[in-house]
């Protein structure tokens, strides 16, 4: 036994140190967790939803409201407004409706009742899919529960963007909400499409009809940029495509119902950077609903809405294919000053890209300048975004940009403004 004091003491000390090292090495970490869910079948599954299979008769004001049963729907407003000093302001305000599951939840949203007619008309719904609230079916004892107004399969999403042309500044914001509990929804009477405090409401006007009426848009971004404008349609409603039935892909059901107000007088106030500006100009409204639009080989679209100085409006989109050899699917219409629409057939419109812009945020390469020509109408215009950076990097990535246009129409010089929407340019 030749153990020194220090040798004896060292052993428990070492054991203690090692133990405390093992026990306390775990660092204090922030509470963090994610949810792993069984991978849901993604967008491709359209079973149980209503599909747009052919032209239908629209009834208003109901059809200005929501169409549950269809998977997606949007109320899309764009416009080019000018301040009193002549500064150009582009804006986009869109409310999207997304249906999460085919069944229409019990009494979740008022729109379900408003649009019962919708489902029967389409004739493709199986009543079995409109299930009663599953919670109560599985837990019949929870009687007081039917009153919960929170359950819904309607998800609302809204995008609001301002393109301040003089500052070349693009600001945008996004909101989400369930279409229930009064937080978001679409009601026909009183007419209101809203997501929290962002809203589109009908403005009282004695001359208006249920088909054609002025609306007011109010929205404020988190950064304080806010728009409060009244839009009054100057022309009748345009039923795009075939009487409002617009085929997007070759496959059956890959189509939407699509109606537009192509020219709306717009006046109101824009608040930006601490300033309140009186603005006026022209807006364009697209209301579209569908369950599936694109075929499997289609990647995205370039969608123009242009208001010309001579009173004409041009809508034209092309849906690009993964296979560059295939010709894009196109739809277009030219609306005359009297509201007469002429459909533009496949191949009637020629579109050449003059310039591209690569997004510093996403790396996506978007065209930003084109020559657009319709030889049959003797129209050739130079179309350019008002500035490059108008990409929307929100939960979905796309480009939504104000346009300025100049060129010739039947030998006369014309100008104009518009908007371009481009999707499917994401970098892999």
């Amino acid at each position: 036994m030749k153990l020194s004091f220090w040798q004896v003491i060292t052993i428990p000390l070492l054991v203690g140190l090692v133990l405390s090292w093992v026990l306390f090495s775990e660092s204090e970490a922030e509470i963090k967790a994610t949810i792993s869910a069984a991978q849901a079948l993604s967008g491709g599954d359209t079973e149980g939803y209503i599909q747009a299979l052919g032209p239908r008769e629209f009834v208003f004001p109901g059809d200005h409201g929501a169409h549950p049963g269809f998977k997606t729907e949007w109320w899309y407003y764009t416009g080019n407004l000018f301040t009193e000093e002549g500064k150009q302001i582009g804006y986009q305000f869109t409310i999207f409706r997304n249906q999460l599951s085919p069944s229409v939840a019990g009494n979740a949203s008022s729109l379900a009742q408003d649009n019962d007619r919708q489902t029967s008309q389409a004739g493709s719904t199986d009543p079995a899919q409109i299930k009663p609230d599953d919670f109560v079916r599985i837990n019949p004892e929870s009687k007081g529960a039917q009153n919960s107004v929170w359950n819904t399969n309607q998800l609302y999403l809204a995008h609001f963007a301002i393109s301040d042309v003089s500052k070349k500044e693009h600001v945008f914001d996004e909101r989400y909400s369930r279409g229930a509990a009064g937080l978001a929804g679409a009601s026909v009477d009183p007419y209101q499409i809203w997501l929290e405090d962002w809203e589109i409401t009908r403005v009282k006007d004695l001359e208006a009809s249920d088909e054609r009426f002025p609306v007011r848009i109010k929205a404020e971004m988190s950064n304080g940029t806010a728009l409060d404008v009244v839009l009054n349609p100057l022309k009748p409603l345009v039923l795009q495509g075939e009487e409002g039935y617009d085929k997007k892909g070759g496959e059956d059901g890959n189509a939407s119902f699509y109606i537009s107000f192509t020219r709306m007088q717009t006046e109101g106030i824009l608040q930006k950077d601490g300033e309140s500006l009186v603005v006026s100009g022209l807006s364009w409204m697209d209301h579209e609903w569908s369950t599936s639009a694109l075929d499997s080989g289609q990647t995205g679209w370039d969608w123009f809405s242009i208001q010309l100085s001579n009173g004409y409006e041009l809508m034209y989109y092309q849906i690009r294919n993964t296979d560059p050899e295939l010709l894009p699917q196109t739809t277009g219409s030219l609306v005359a000053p009297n509201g007469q629409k002429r459909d533009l057939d496949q191949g009637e419109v020629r579109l050449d890209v003059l310039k591209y812009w690569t997004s510093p945020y996403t790396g996506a390469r978007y065209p930003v300048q084109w020559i657009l020509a319709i030889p049959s109408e003797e129209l050739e215009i130079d179309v350019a975004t008002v500035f490059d950076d108008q990409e929307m990097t929100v939960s979905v990535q796309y480009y939504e940009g104000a346009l300025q246009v100049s060129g010739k129409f039947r030998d006369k010089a014309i100008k104009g403004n518009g908007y371009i929407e481009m999707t499917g340019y994401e970098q892999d």
Partner: protein
Amino acid sequence: MSRKHQDLLWQSSLRFLLKHPWHFLLSILGVALGVAMVISIDLSNSSAQRAFSLSAEALTGKATHQIQGSGGFLSEQVYRDVKLATGYRNAAPVIDGYGRVQGLNRTFQILGVDPIAEGPFRDFSSQDGGIDLAKFITGQPTAVLSELVLANLGKNIGDSLQISVGGRPFVLFIAGAIATSNKPSEQALESVLLVDINTAQHLFDMAGQLSRIDLIIPDENEELIIGSLSSSLPQGTRLVSSGSRTDTLSQMTRAFELNLQALSLLALLVGMFLIYNTMTFSVVQRLPLIGRLRALGVTKSEILFMIIREAVLIGLIGTMLGITAGIGLAQFLLGLVTQSINDLYFVLSVQELTIDLVPVLKAVTLGLGATLMAAFWPAREAAETEVSTVLRRSLSESRLAQRLPSLSLIGLAIGLAGGGILLIPNGEIIAGYNSLLFVIIGFSLVIPALMVGLVALMRPIFGALNGLIGKMSVRGVVTELSRTSVAVAALVVAVAASVGVGVMVDSFRVTVVSWLESQLQADIYVQPPSAVARKADAQLQAELVQIFKETEGVASVHSVFSEDVMTTYGSSNLVTTSLGAKASHSYQTKEIQDGFWEQFALEEVIMISEVYAYRFGVGMGDSLGIITDKGMQYFPIQAIYFDYASDMGTITMNRSLYDRYFDNRAISGLALYADDQTEVDVLVNRLRDSVVGVQEVFIRSNKGLREASIEIFDRTFTVTVVLRLLAVVVAFVGILSSLMALQLERAREHAVLRANGMTPGQLWNYVITQTGVMGVIAGVLSIPLGLLISYVLVYVINLRSFGWTLEFIVSPPLLIQAIGLAVGAALLAGIYPSWKMARANPADALRNE
């Protein structure tokens, strides 16, 4: 001085310790037991606290503020207004409550959220976190649980899950699993069941309502935003900071935890006595050796250092063993502590022990520190040993005898100082424990004098009973008073601690039982199962009330409702009763205004519990502000009643008054009276049959409820009882070790007795009688100290912790048990030394002479 030289001293120490393994082991055991008790309590407390703060952190998320309703509810319209009218974005609706998951016998916190609004608040419950909205918000019965819980349940995503909320069964489907990336997150979320707001409204029957709205309010505009949000809130709702609720909850358990800690420190104190005792012996036994070492030129400081080093060794080994044993003990205590918190305060699930650095460091400091402190005096005594050692012992004894009066006076002074501390007005719980410490130390110092007195009393008795040997044995106790008094003091403190705690628990129990008898007047009680045993936090289905009223044999029914409301003193439990003036039969009042019961039925007056009055310093005639659905209202307090059900205190008002100011029509319990023709048990069965399939409720007779309540009471005191048992074990080991050491040390004396003709049998008699006498002395002295301790516990600490008035009950069996414990251990301690001595050759023991 060379290293080698020092090593030699160390070798000598080590050899001595190993030659006396019993002694060595018992010293280590003394340290280990004390340390084990302190660390186990600390660890179980800190684990519970950690589990609480982690889950609070996870559930609060990044919310800085919240909007609450007047009771536990908030209209969801408020949320719509915040989002739509005010346009405030960083707001999220929350419904929370509790439920049990079948297959795991524990309570889960059910968190109902809107995953779309959750993003900025809590990542695990948000859409961005990966919640599948299509399954979650669409009205399907779905829930999300932690991966770990799913693994424990043996379930996968998509499987069904049975849960029970307030006695109502539900089936939910698992829509996702919470994957945690680190241990704290895992712990924080292991008892969370995440559901959508709509599902939560179903589960808690809260259509149209929320529990609260979480908000994130940035610092820079805080006042402005709070101002604008507050101004648009309806009456009865309020905007508070998120931390306030968590703080309130963690405040609740403060007194509870402090008391447990104090009990564990008491154990350490006993441990210190034991260490002092054993270290002293180890020095005394070596006095001749130390004398020789000094003669050989070893310096005083070297001797001091030698003993200190021994103490360090003992302390270190004891502390390590104590920590190891303490961690094991904490595993067990954690279950009890958690159970008590769940019974008394709030739902807390603690699945595992967290070993924090702080309790471990504290244990090391206490263990080593206590050992060194206890060893210092013996070490100094050793260092001061004269070179000639022959007269050493008798000298030290006579010195003690001289000091006896002054020692006793100092003891008295310290004891009185301890009493004086209690007189300090508004003293804290800590002051109570300090006074306890003073009383114990003071009493210990008087013990030598008391022993001399007792021995003088006992000598003639033992002489009569056991002749010369009896007299010799008793006298032997005081001839070495410097040794025996320490041993006896250690025993007294240990046994007294167990007496004190025992008397306190008994007093409590008797008080509660008699209170229950007067409180429970009805024949049958109906309650839904609640998450916290002593609180009615679940509701009865409205239709049940109707069913019961119409059941044959029910003469009358009155209802009770309990909810948390906001008052001028913070969140408080409000109990409403429909008894009206008849409440006078059920409530025992401490103070009461004349004609109160008539007023209680008809006018706007309330009564509060004794605990509530104590906690918030309110009394008769004061007005209590309560935030009602009609805004802040003030009610005069006209009576104070006894209530042992809640240590947070309760406010009681008549139902008719409540209904005037609150919209909630819920009921959380019913009391039924049987008519004269119906047997209570028959009626209970009839009622049970009538609720099948409606709601799972407890229907209990008066007797049944009383028994159930006492069972819960006993459960909440399990920790205390366990600690008391541990103190008894420490005491027992202490008695055993010190008396055994004492007798072993007397080997030479015993050899002289043998050599002078005492037979082995007589030596047995001598040794056993002597240890027995010390046991009796310790037992007898422990009773007054024990009663003093219990007095302080019942009238000071309990009052300051909880505000209860208890009857002071001393049960004779408890006292007999204490004496029995002391004597039994003492007798046991005599066996080995006397056996050893009886067998040894007296010549060997004397050879050194």
